[in-house]
């Protein structure tokens, strides 16, 4: 199982901060994003959000394994 985290406007649109996805074999970050959209529908800003795998920024081709956490990070605005 892969845990998906959503924040800010993404969480607001999804109505939740956490979504779980089942995967059998390792898949790419990009595939996780597609699966998420299939599961919960289109989220504005999801395509441009940065992505963190286990709390580190990654690219679309990085590999996601069972047990990982994938977070979608819309443009940050702290400070």
């Amino acid at each position: 199982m892969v845990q998906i985290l959503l924040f800010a406007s993404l969480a607001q649109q999804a109505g939740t901060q956490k979504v779980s996805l089942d995967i059998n074999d390792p898949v790419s970050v990009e595939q996780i994003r597609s699966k998420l959209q299939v599961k919960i529908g289109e989220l504005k800003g999801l395509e441009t959000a940065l992505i963190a795998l286990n709390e580190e920024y990654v690219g679309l081709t990085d590999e996601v394994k069972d047990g990982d956490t994938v977070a979608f990070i819309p443009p940050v605005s702290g400070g």
Partner: protein
Amino acid sequence: MKLYNITSEPINNQDVIDKVIHHNSGAVSVFIGTVREMTDEKKTRYLEYEAYVPMAEKQLEKIGEEIKVKWPDAKTAITHRIGTLQISDTAVTIAVSTPHRQDAFEASRYAIERIKEIVPIWKKEHYTDGEEWVGNQKGTESYPLGHPEGVE
């Protein structure tokens, strides 16, 4: 003593400052970000900050490490508050001590710029006439390089 901290409690500036003062610091540059009422014509009633807490603390620590590379004698502490903040409340306090003052100013300024680039914290403005997540949340523009500068 946690140098890089996300908290839902009010920030005590002196606590952050005390983390970086030591016998060979001669200068401390402190940056305090507070909630401003007016932004152009819009009036803020209050703000909400949300964070991906464990990653945000890691990213703050990473900023401290970047500072250490650029200014080896610097010592840095950063606390960012989350939750609901009222006008004039402190959202973030950055303290950087160095032996000499120029470095302290530069490093402190570097820290706040980097926070706005790489730390997963989000601000929602509650204006008198509506609310919005700050920072182009609609995804109509992407980051200039597809990712925040310096993120590999």
